[in-house]
């Protein structure tokens, strides 16, 4: 999806780059500030809006072998209720008897309502086939909760158990570099290179961490859902490949989402 960038923006970014190169070590603080300003400029016209529009269409369109729309899909607040649904996911669902995140629940609905095969979508690489549908639906459904506060339920025993599983996963050191989620996200006020890292052991604040994905990534021109974000986290952790909507990904989402209780949702957000 091409981004339209005004010539004045290109000139501004070039000037910023030149200024940074000249300033050397003393520019360390302003480099992060400069990047924040760059993001603010781009936020005027977040390309995620295009995915939101597409997602709304896909929700209403009759698709799949059953030629049905997703308008009866229950995301936790009743069939077809989308507003406010995203800030209470993942949660337990009685019909499937499992705790499910947004993408897992969409697979359930695309299966039962439209006749799609979840296994096929699970095997499809990101950015291809029905994974493109998942990105767009995630963008629109999260947008319908924008400005609301994270409010994942923890009433059901399975929701509590998944929180504990997610907590264990978060601190699990493994792989050749001994990384866990906590290696990067287990302290406050740290960064990798110039990328600030939220402390995900608790509430990282409004519009940060779990409340900020799905997000449009400017550097790759891609809309990333939370499943894709977790996938790339595990890749960078040098772990093996997490299954799409596998239990560990849902457990981690429960952990992060419950920790973020009360934080303002800004998804789909804009990222570097």
């Amino acid at each position, binding site marked *: 999806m091409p981004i339209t960038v005004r010539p004045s923006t290109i000139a501004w970014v070039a000037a910023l780059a030149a200024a940074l190169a000249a300033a*050397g070590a003393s520019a360390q603080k302003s480099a992060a500030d400069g990047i924040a300003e760059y993001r603010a400029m781009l936020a005027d016209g977040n390309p995620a809006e295009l995915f939101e529009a597409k997602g709304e269409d896909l929700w209403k369109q009759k698709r799949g072998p059953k030629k049905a729309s997703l308008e009866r899909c229950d995301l936790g607040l009743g069939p077809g209720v989308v507003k406010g649904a995203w800030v209470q996911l993942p949660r337990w669902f009685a019909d499937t008897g499992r705790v499910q995140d947004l993408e897992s629940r969409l697979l359930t609905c695309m299966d039962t309502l439209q006749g799609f095969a979840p296994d096929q979508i699970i095997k499809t690489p990101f950015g291809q086939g029905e994974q493109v549908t998942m990105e767009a639906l995630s963008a629109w459904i999260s947008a319908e909760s924008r400005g609301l506060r994270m409010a994942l339920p923890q009433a059901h025993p399975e929701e509590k158990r998944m929180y504990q599983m997610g*907590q264990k996963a978060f601190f699990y050191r493994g792989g050749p570099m001994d990384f866990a989620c906590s290696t*990067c996200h287990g302290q406050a006020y740290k960064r990798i290179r110039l990328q600030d890292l939220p402390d995900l052991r608790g509430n990282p604040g409004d519009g940060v961490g779990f409340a900020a994905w799905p997000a449009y990534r400017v550097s790759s021109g891609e809309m990333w859902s939370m499943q894709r974000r977790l996938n790339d986290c595990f890749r960078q952790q040098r772990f093996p490949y997490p299954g799409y909507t596998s239990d560990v990904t849902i457990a981690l989402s429960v952990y992060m989402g419950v920790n973020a209780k009360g934080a303002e949702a800004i998804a789909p957000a804009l990222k570097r």
Partner: protein
Amino acid sequence: MTRFHKISLGAVAAAVLAGCAALPAGSALDSSFLAMLKGSFRSEGIATVDRLDQDAGQQACSTGQPPSETVAKQVEAQALATIKPPSDGQYLGDWREGEKLAQNGRGMTWTDKSSAPSANGANCYNCHQITKAEISFGTIGPSLYQYGKLRGVSDPKDPAAAAMVQYTWGKINNAWAYNACSNMPRFGHKQLLDEQQIKHVMALLLDPKSPVNVQ
């Protein structure tokens, strides 16, 4: 595995289990957690599922809290035992190669073709400040700017510098020898970097001519 190693691993495992005994339903939760983990991942490229198997040290470092002093000492002692001096007695390589390695964060992921150390970077700038010129540095680890200079290493070959040189060598090879559960990868012990690459990183930090110490 030598008998000595078997005994010390057993001691670490016993210490870990002793700590867990106080938690209700600890082992039931642990086994259902491990089952969930095994069911959630698959091998992809060089990133195979055996990477989920923890060594005793990783296990002790996965609670979300620092390990007890006893366990920490055991983890550190085990780690120290893995460190070997360079095969030719030369600790320093070329700082220019060290800087290239420090800038390179590649390697060991499922999109990397080979797990040979020659395919890997040292990843240093992701977590550390190193030279003055590089402003894109992380803060997960302490600043290494002026590393050798601040530690009074004006000649790395001087016997007076030996302790600091050996400590630095040890730290890069197996950081857990000095800080159990360190966030720093165990570059030598886990074969992320080979001896020559580690010598280049040593030079970046300790060569008096390196920009780390000159600027």
